[in-house]
């Protein structure tokens, strides 16, 4: 199938979680605490898109189709998009866009710090995701974009700490398992083993 068409389909599919929030909002179905629901939903979708982004290279190794990798950028930018919504809603509605209040929350609370650092790094990757930045950075580009592994680890810690009070880790374990498998598979000798 034509890769441009596939990219367009992925783009439309990627907007569904956002569309869902609008529909639920219109129906008044965002629970009694809509902001919490939206914050959590965008957070979960951030980590979901992160998993999908990380899955593209392994899919190429396993199937031998190089086209998978061409979807990486779209998926990566969706990760940033939902991360941006997640961050902005918290910054706006929890901190009234007060920069100092937001930063002091980041400094005081490791759980928030993990998410914040991940978001800052992710912003750098998003900014440098275009052809111009790629050309300008040359060899450094690849190194910079390897920081996605760090983002993945920070995101998992952020999620874990968030759920710590209730000790309700079921969903967190699923995401942690997925992310660690996707990182593990990149260890050179395992990669060699699965490569077609």
């Amino acid at each position: 199938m034509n890769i441009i068409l596939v990219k367009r389909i992925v783009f439309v599919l990627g907007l569904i979680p956002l569309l869902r929030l609008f529909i639920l909002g219109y129906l008044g179905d965002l629970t009694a605490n809509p902001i919490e629901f939206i914050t959590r939903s965008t957070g979960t979708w951030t980590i979901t898109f992160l998993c999908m982004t990380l899955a593209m290279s392994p899919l190429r190794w396993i199937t031998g189709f190089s086209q998978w990798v061409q979807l990486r950028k779209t998926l990566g930018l969706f990760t940033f998009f939902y991360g941006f919504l997640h961050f902005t809603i918290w910054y706006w509605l929890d901190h009234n866009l007060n920069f100092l209040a937001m930063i002091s929350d980041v400094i005081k609370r490791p759980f928030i710090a993990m998410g914040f650092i991940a978001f800052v790094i992710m912003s750098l990757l998003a900014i440098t995701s275009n052809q111009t930045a790629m050309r300008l950075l040359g060899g450094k580009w690849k190194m910079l974009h390897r920081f996605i592994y760090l983002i993945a680890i920070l995101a998992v810690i952020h999620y874990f700490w968030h759920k710590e009070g209730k000790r309700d880790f079921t969903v967190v374990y699923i995401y942690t398992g997925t992310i660690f498998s996707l990182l593990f598979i990149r260890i050179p000798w395992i990669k060699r083993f699965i490569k077609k």
Partner: protein
Amino acid sequence: MIFKDPRIKSRDITPQDVFAHRRKLLKILTVGSLAAGLSSSLQYEAFALTENNQKKLKAKYNQKYSVKDKHTSFKDATNYNNFYEFGMDKDDPARYAKSLITRPWTISIEGLVQKPMTIDFDSLIKLSALEERVYRMRCVEGWSMVIPWNGFSLLNLLNKVEPLGTAKYVEFITLADPKQMPGLSSSIIAWPYLEGLRLDEAMNPLTFLTFGIYGEILPNQNGAPVRIVVPWKYGFKSAKSIVKIRLTDQEPITSWHRTAPMEYGFYSNVNPNVSHPRWSQSTERRIDGRNIFSSKIKTEMFNGYEEYVAQLYTGMDLRKFY
């Protein structure tokens, strides 16, 4: 070899002869119910009527102890709950608490009291005149509601059992029946859910023994048939579906304190100046149908009940006794 599943009790197994003649039995039952048709349908209507009447509670509005804030809608107050016995998600209690059996229900008051007693729900609710009080409910998670509760001060009950001079604390023990409560399969906290108050806190007139909400008997998901509401403390202090109240001389080890001692103290008074380890408690999100993009509101000391309860804590370091 006979395979025996230990979970299946012999009383649950349909006897062989009943099973073999089930069609015949059904026929007999059908004919029987046709004969009794008229009378049973009348009975049904009578039952529905009394049930309807019983759902409403007559309670006198108590202005002194009611806040003027806009009420949370009945829908939100009964569909957004933390009641882990029925699941961890906010909509789980509304979905699964139907399995809770609230009648007959007895509650026993024991421990360091002159007159221990066991009282059934219908007598308990008649112990004192019912009041309606509109309280703020501040959850430790950072959201709050404004709810009209129906009940009477817990002190009315405690006075009946005459606490001994040695009694210093009151422990609330709630129902833990895995047959009625699917959430008990999770081991997040040790069941039964235990809560506690210092005796003078429990005797404060604000501490409310609650049977109803918005003038109706408590829906199961809100802690039916009897719970307490302690409006100046975080919501989890207000134990639901209480089966036993025990007076002791030792500070009770409450469920949440046991699970995460650094995060949830015995006192857990609403206090904007003492942060939860993972989030600030200085603001809260009010659930009252306001625009969803409204900013948070400031949390008040003792949830706004300072004038009634501050004297309970004179000389105490509330950072230490969080």
